[in-house]
């Protein structure tokens, strides 16, 4: 069985320092936010944020509560770092290997193209879980020692809740990397979508006439720190994971049907790119 997971193993080895690097940032931030809570508690207790500002915090948890504070200062923005990691991996999986030319030797091994994509996806699931886990470790090293109204279980749920959205952006960037075999183009496309997702959710929350925008944003379904208070919204998780699975499936389909390029594609015109993306 071991050899069937060799691409998972290789990918994780390649990513180990990234995982550790992102992980340390997650750990440091989560612990720091919890440790500073007692000194902010009284300051923020009286704060009533205007609706528009509250909207920027990614959830409707009140900033004056511990959960609202941790949500705004950690869970509202830290997934963007996780998305940076998953987009790096997603564009690297196919477009990166084609760009560096290593894909020829990899795909000349007895390995199916779908097997390659699935193994790389498994590696990213493990890597993302480890990074989010580092974040939880920060809570584990702080919550028991601080007077804060957050449970470890709530923190664990909110950490785990980051994964579906990060994997969705992974899957989108993977697919971009397959249809535009060029890492720069694929990263550009995926980052643009992530940024749009973040702002759509924020703007939708702030401007009531645009509130329907939020349904198009993965950040809405993510919900920042809400799982600390309300538990996980499984319908949202399933929706995000479903879209992620759809894009992994589209990638497998497009990658299985096309030629493997060496050096990837470059100098694509916008029209060509749109043609490839729209199939």
């Amino acid at each position: 069985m071991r050899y069937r997971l060799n691409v998972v193993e290789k990918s994780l080895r390649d990513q180990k320092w990234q995982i550790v690097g992102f992980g340390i940032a997650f750990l440091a931030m989560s612990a720091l936010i919890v440790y500073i809570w007692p000194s902010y508690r009284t300051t923020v207790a009286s704060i009533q944020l205007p609706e528009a500002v509250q909207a920027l915090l990614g959830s409707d948890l009140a900033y004056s509560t511990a959960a609202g504070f941790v949500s705004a200062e950690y869970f509202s923005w830290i997934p963007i770092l996780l998305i940076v990691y998953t987009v790096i991996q997603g564009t690297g999986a196919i477009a990166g290997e084609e760009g560096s030319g290593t894909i020829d030797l990899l795909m000349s091994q007895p390995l199916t193209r779908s097997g390659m994509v699935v193994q790389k996806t498994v590696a990213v699931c493990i890597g993302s879980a480890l990074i989010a886990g580092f974040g939880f470790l920060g809570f584990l090293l702080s919550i028991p020692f601080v007077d804060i109204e957050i449970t470890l279980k709530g923190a664990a749920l909110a950490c785990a809740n980051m994964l579906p959205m990060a994997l969705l952006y992974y899957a989108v960037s993977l697919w971009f990397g397959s249809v535009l075999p060029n890492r720069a183009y694929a990263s550009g496309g995926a980052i643009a979508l992530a940024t749009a997702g973040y702002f759509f959710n924020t703007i939708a929350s702030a401007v009531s006439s645009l509130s329907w925008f939020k349904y198009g944003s993965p950040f809405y379904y993510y919900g920042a720190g809400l799982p600390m208070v309300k538990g996980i919204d499984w319908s949202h998780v399933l929706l995000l994971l479903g879209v992620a699975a759809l894009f992994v499936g589209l990638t497998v389909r497009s990658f299985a049907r096309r030629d493997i390029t060496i050096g990837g594609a470059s100098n694509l015109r916008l029209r060509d790119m749109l043609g490839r993306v729209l199939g």
Partner: protein
Amino acid sequence: MAPAIELRSVFKDYGRVRALRGIDLTIESGQIFGFLGPNGAGKTTTIRILLDLIRPTSGTASVLGLDSQRESVEVRRRCGYLPGDLRMYEGMRGSAFLDLIDSFRPQKRDPQYRRELLERLELDPSMPIRALSKGNKQKMGLVQALMHRPDVLILDEPTSGLDPLVQQEVAKLLEEAVAGGRTVFFSSHVLPEVERLSHAVAIIREGTIAAVEDIARLKSRAVHVLEITFAEPPPTGLFALPGVRELHRDGNTVHIQALDGLDAAIKVIAAYHIVDLRTEQPSLEDFFLAHYSASAEEKDRDALPAERR
């Protein structure tokens, strides 16, 4: 027994560019088969189709009777491949890289043979790949292709970047592989290399197979290019002999190309006072011009009436 490699009417278009124009080729097992052609003729495209890295626009390819597309995993399990544009994971150490390649075929691991290959090619696997010279990278590529003793070795320009001594060692390794019943299919754009290494050769030109030749026969049909300097300007039409072509003359010096008319040419010049005589290594282009341009023209002529019908 199924042939080691079989290509039938394989066409490949890249957009509007037609890279392969109907490749038909059958290679029986147990030989070293050279695939000779100038750069851009379609060698790499053909090779990558065999391993299902790219898909033909039409036609079929098979390896050991297995369809390259439908049974691609099994094809790749039984092949060792050296890419023409060899890129490895630069950050890995050689030994870790070979372990990775090994991990795809655990049932065929042969650590002793791997060590032997490394020793014979004088390659240190403890070095990171990025620190290897071009020649050493090529050796690493050869080791990963050979180390499982695959039934078919598909090597794209295997001796590129290797010094002559190493090339000899590689030739020995390939001969040993074939002696063990395996098949080697390798591409090259260098005629003498193909002559030296292989038993048979297919010549590809502009996406079609121009000829398939036995090397022994090819050698007997070698092209000789002679540069003869006479003491006096020789008479015109001196070399109007069968199998001899006068290429050009420059004062007292005449360049001739002799196919099967070498003996006749030497006998003719023996009657004159010769100041200097040089032979040139024929280039691949000379070889093609001498052997195939005439037959291609004939083919075109033959094809015309058929098209008109």
